[in-house]
């Protein structure tokens, strides 16, 4: 029965990984760029959510979209000022620039919020549901539910809308997309906005799940998102969705199956990453990366 609660926890954790990884993979898809600062956008989202709730007392269903808009705009700013102006001819330059953004965002956060943990307000009143011997907290259900809903909306957006189709075209080839009349720069910008909005949502959900947020929380999620992106296949959005859930479940199982004083969760996660890199570098579901 504990296993069942763990299963829900695994899905909850995994769904937040999925949200981060989708953003990574969208950006990797259209630019072939590892957006290192993506974890810091999540962190920024967590703090924005926190202050929206503290200052305005707005309920979660308003706080979440507001946070997504705010981090979405942050993503646009990052792309416009730190990535777009950089010549693509120098391979490492955009990556280094996003690392710079990481440091800047992190230190701004330390300056503003302090370098210690801040308690995330209870955005929802936690209920414990009991089904016979089963107990499930409403938090984990809600987080999982919101994450899945966001993923479904994103999936619809990419599969069915004109902008979504243009994003897929840009991910296949900038040249071809341009010849079809797509404003490639704008689509890349929108992609950053969408990815960053999802990261912001993940930040709020992580805040609710873990109750404490810090300016350093970005790194963990950035790295987990990276593992999930590799697991799902570079640029493969559906792969990132499924990959996140797989990683979440795997981490939780590792805790259940290998009880240990020290936390082996991360050993497990990054062990998986190395195994993928060795045996299945294209990921479980195949890569979808632009041939630019």
């Amino acid at each position, binding site marked *: 029965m504990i296993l069942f609660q763990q299963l829900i926890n695994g899905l909850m954790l995994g769904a937040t990984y999925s949200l981060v990884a989708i953003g990574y993979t969208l950006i990797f898809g259209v630019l072939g760029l590892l957006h290192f600062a993506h974890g810091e956008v999540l962190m920024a989202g967590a703090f924005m959510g926190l202050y929206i709730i503290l200052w305005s007392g707005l309920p979660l269903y308003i706080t979440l979209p507001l946070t997504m808009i705010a981090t979405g705009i942050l993503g646009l700013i990052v792309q416009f000022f730190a990535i777009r102006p950089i010549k693509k001819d120098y391979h490492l330059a955009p990556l280094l620039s996003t690392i710079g953004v990481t440091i800047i965002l992190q230190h701004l956060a330390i300056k503003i919020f302090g370098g210690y943990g801040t308690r995330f307000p209870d955005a929802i009143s936690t209920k414990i549901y009991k089904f016979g011997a089963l107990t499930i907290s409403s938090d984990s259900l809600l987080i999982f539910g919101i994450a899945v809903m966001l993923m479904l909306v994103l999936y619809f957006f990419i599969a069915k809308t*004109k902008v979504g*189709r*243009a994003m*897929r*075209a840009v991910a*296949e*080839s900038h*040249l*071809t997309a*341009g*010849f*079809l*009349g*797509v*404003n*490639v*720069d704008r689509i890349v910008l929108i992609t950053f906005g969408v990815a960053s909005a999802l990261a912001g949502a993940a930040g709020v959900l992580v805040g609710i799940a873990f109750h404490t947020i810090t300016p350093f929380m970005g790194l963990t999620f950035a790295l987990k998102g990276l593992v999930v992106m590799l697991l799902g296949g570079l640029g493969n959005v559906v792969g990132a969705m499924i990959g996140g859930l797989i990683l979440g479940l795997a981490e939780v199982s590792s805790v259940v199956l290998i009880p240990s004083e020290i936390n082996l969760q991360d050993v497990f996660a990054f062990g998986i990453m190395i195994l993928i890199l060795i045996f299945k570098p294209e990921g479980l579901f195949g890569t*979808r990366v632009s041939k630019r």
Partner: protein
Amino acid sequence: MLSIEGVSSGYGKILAVKDVNLLVEEGEIVVLLGANGAGKSTLLRTISGAMKPKSGSIIFKGQRIDGKKPHLIVKEGVVQVEEGRGILSRMSVKENLDMGAYLRSDKDGIMKDLERVFQKFPRLKERLNQNAGTLSGGEQQMLAIGRAMMANPKLLLMDEPSLGLSPNFVELIIRAIREFRDQDGYTILLVEQNAKKALDIADRGYILETGRIVLEGTAQDLLNNEELQRAYLGRDAKTRED
């Protein structure tokens, strides 16, 4: 309709197109010939805005388009079928055709053009929901051309549309290009390796050699040009033997 004046273009410091002057009048098929690496694709990419010319100007319908972004040039009606077809291989045939009409919002016109595409290439209708990456080379070329039709082009730039196709498909594509001029009112700038076939349907032609135009004339003159026959038309005859 299209006037290229003193255009140089290239990669980094290397110029692949040097001081090119080229004219395409409305309603013409103009063919651009040249060996591999002569700079034909570079010139087309420069016209379409994927590359900025280093110097010179490109004028379409009286307006300068050099330096404009590709999507704005498509908006003017200059549409390119790129070398290697540029199929979006992870999308369905239908989605590829929809992407062709990306900048349009005239639903009726789009529907009409879709019908025209199916009329010209019935095979695409059969494959409509298939993944475009699974099409044969010939079918992909039909899709690339059909997709360009969906953009309602005024000037169609075609970069080696018959490359790698079987003789039947080559005939089909060549016929489609001639009909574009004669029935659909498109103006066409055609890059071809298949010099004889291209000159047979073209009005005029240019020969590009290491980035420079070395010869130009009516298609008839070029077909009769002895030097050209040795350089290009002879090789055609040979490829047809094997």
